[in-house]
């Protein structure tokens, strides 16, 4: 049975981790959730990123959602903003790509050029 008391305990644990996270800086993953994104599977993509980050116990990464990113044909899309504020937009994301993006980009700091919107639009 879930309770608000247990949620508060979880919050306190999360706060301790966050103090470490803010010192190191981190990544931000923004998943496009317009009608086009949702219809293309953006919810599964967001859940996929959350699961991958949880499974790999990555501390320096926040996942959030935004509206339509303006390139409906290439949904589902996610923008990754690194610790320097640089933006990378990944498009037509699949489950396998999520694992690869997290491993190479978030953990090893190596963006995957072939999945980026700019390269796929050419």
């Amino acid at each position, binding site marked *: *049975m879930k309770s608000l008391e247990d949620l508060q305990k979880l*919050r306190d644990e*999360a706060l301790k981790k*966050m103090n470490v996270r803010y010192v190191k800086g981190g990544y931000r993953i923004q998943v496009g959730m317009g*009608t*086009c994104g949702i*219809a293309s599977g953006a919810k599964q993509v967001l859940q996929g990123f*959350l699961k991958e980050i*949880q499974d790999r116990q990555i501390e320096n990464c926040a*996942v959030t959602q935004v509206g339509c990113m303006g390139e409906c044909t290439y949904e589902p899309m996610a923008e990754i903003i690194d610790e320097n504020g640089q933006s990378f937009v990944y498009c037509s994301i699949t489950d396998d790509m999520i694992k690869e993006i997290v491993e190479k980009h978030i953990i090893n700091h190596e963006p995957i050029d072939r999945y980026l919107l700019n390269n796929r639009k050419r």
Partner: protein
Amino acid sequence: MDNIALYLLDLAQNAIVAKANHIDIHIKEDDMLVLEMKDDGCGMDEETLQKASSPFFTTRKTRKVGLGLSMIKMVSEQTSGEFQLTSKPNEGTTLKVSFDIHHMDMPPLGDFGDVVVMLAIHQDMNDFSFTYEKDNKQYTFHLNDMKELLGDTLHDIYVMNYLKDYINQEINRVRGIL
């Protein structure tokens, strides 16, 4: 989109784009499922309101179709429900849409807990409340209350997952499933 919760997620984006300070989402379940969403965003003039549920109308410049409202209107009509959209410029918009929950074309309800948490972490969301009501019992989630309780940890993955399960548990309690 294959469930009501996903439609809700989509429709709330319209209110966010309309720069709403508060979005009030209310779902009431009996023989009909009635979903009402009120926002205090920029609203629409009469001409825009008339076109709003057309799939070939959008205020966006990046594409020429706007499918969110038209799809939920279609689903409500398919299930013998009703679709009402009212709006005034600078006052906000109210959407009321109903579905016959026993109709053979009624989509699954979907994962409301998941959708509420996703809305809560939307970067442009100011505040919203979500209420699920059935048989005089109800559960209400207020984003601002939760922000006060959780602060930045609202974006912590473990907190988000727990919160999602907690919301679903409370909805199931209201629905008499627990």
